[in-house]
């Protein structure tokens, strides 16, 4: 900002309409005010100054004439003047209630309350003090309520955590009991033997709690006599289990073998029940199934 533009005397002349004949300077100042917030603020402060001096009666005759005929033409400036008068009246009314401290008391700082600020009490000031103390007390109360509330929440949280641990333990116990209550058998129904063609063999999942497999093997209609049944792992000849069984025949003539085998020794893999009729010992039928031993 050039020095002439920021000269308070020049700005004062501008505001009183005395630079209108000096077009270049007037133009520079007008543009400067338009584009510079800093200069604009300085101009406003000088406007206030002119108004204060006008009310004080401190303007010389030329300045007063310029203020009357030029400066105070706009309504906005008249309003500013009215406001300045109102402000003076406010402080004059409260002057008797003002406690005037010695002039050597701490100067005002840029922020925060000063002792002087509290010392300059007016009737409105006492009300302000009460309000301040009340606000402070309310703040302390709010703080204590907050601490109490948070403490309550923490206690409740701890209680809930304890309950959660108990609940988990109970659930685990129930799960163990439930596993014990489950029957330790699994059913396996075998309808067709290997000769019927390729296909996925039926599979069963053998959980640790399963101790026996109840097997049902469908036989041809009208089957009679005894049957030799042995359990083999796929590709191994050694029998895991064997028995000689009589079929169960229904009223309609359907025959089936029903028996149960222990799961001990049965791991994940393909197994076969090898069935042969005692009457036709060399004719074997292989009933395959897949076991999945669950951990």
């Amino acid at each position, binding site marked *: 900002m050039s020095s002439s533009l920021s000269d308070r005397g020049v700005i004062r002349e501008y505001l009183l309409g005395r630079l209108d004949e000096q077009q270049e300077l007037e133009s520079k100042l007008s543009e400067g005010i338009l584009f510079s917030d800093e200069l604009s603020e300085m101009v406003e402060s000088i406007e*206030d100054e002119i108004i204060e001096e006008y009310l004080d009666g401190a303007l010389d005759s030329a300045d007063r004439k310029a203020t009357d005929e030029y400066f105070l033409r706009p309504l906005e400036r008249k309003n500013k003047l009215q406001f300045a008068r109102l402000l003076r009246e406010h402080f004059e009314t409260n002057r008797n209630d003002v406690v005037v401290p010695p002039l050597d008391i701490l100067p*005002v700082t840029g922020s925060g309350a000063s002792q002087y600020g509290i010392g300059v009490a007016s009737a409105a000031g006492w009300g302000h003090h009460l309000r301040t103390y009340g606000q402070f007390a309310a703040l302390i109360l709010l703080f204590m309520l907050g601490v109490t509330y948070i403490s309550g929440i923490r206690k409740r949280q701890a209680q809930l955590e304890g309950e959660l641990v108990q609940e988990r333990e109970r659930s685990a116990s129930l799960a163990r009991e439930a596993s014990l209550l489950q029957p330790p058998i699994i059913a396996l129904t075998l309808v067709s033997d290997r000769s019927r063609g390729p296909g996925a063999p039926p599979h069963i999942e053998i959980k640790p709690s399963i101790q026996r497999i109840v097997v049902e093997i469908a036989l041809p209609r009208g089957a009679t006599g005894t049957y030799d049944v042995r359990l083999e792992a796929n590709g191994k000849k050694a029998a895991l289990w064997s028995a000689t069984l009589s079929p169960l025949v229904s009223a309609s003539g359907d025959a089936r073998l029903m028996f149960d085998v222990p799961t001990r020794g049965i791991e994940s893999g393909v197994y076969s029940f090898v069935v042969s009729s005692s009457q036709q010992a060399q004719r074997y039928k292989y009933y395959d199934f897949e076991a999945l031993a669950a951990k």
Partner: protein
Amino acid sequence: MAVLLWAAMAAPGGKRAITAEAFGRFLRWLSEDDELAVREYQSIRTKLVSYFIRKGCAHPDELFDETVDVVVGKIEVCAEYPPLNYCYGVAKNVWRQDVRQRKPISLDGDVVSPEHPDTGVHEHELKCLEHCMGQLALSDRDVIARYYQGEGRDKIETRKLLADGVGGVNALRIRMCRIRKDLRVCLADCIKRSAN
């Protein structure tokens, strides 16, 4: 928002010849974005109205409207110029025209100590001011109280001490200017709310 702005400008009783379409072109020149355009318009309005006030014009709002009318009429020409610069250039011409037509006026009554037509209104204004003083920051309230403290020589001494505390005479002037502005805005708002 732009439509509302134009409607406010073209209020009944006004002498505006500006059409909505023309005003729309004016706003587009200010910015492609509606919201930014309106903000720019309001900024230009504030600055040019302040300009007309500083130039001692009795009717700054009307002169601003006249400026916009002229600019809108030349929108094709001014498209390449920064809006505020161009509007200011037109505003200067509008001001010169106003000066040529200006008649000397005298202030109504005694402005220094006028009699308030309605003491009730005056009392209300003082109450509002009391309220607004309470809304100031403590430090600002302190400054203004000390600024108006005392009379004659005491007042001068107090202000000197005050100025030393806030960083100098100019700093005190600027600070007081801001405080008065805050109070004026608050006072106007308080009075308006009471009227409603």
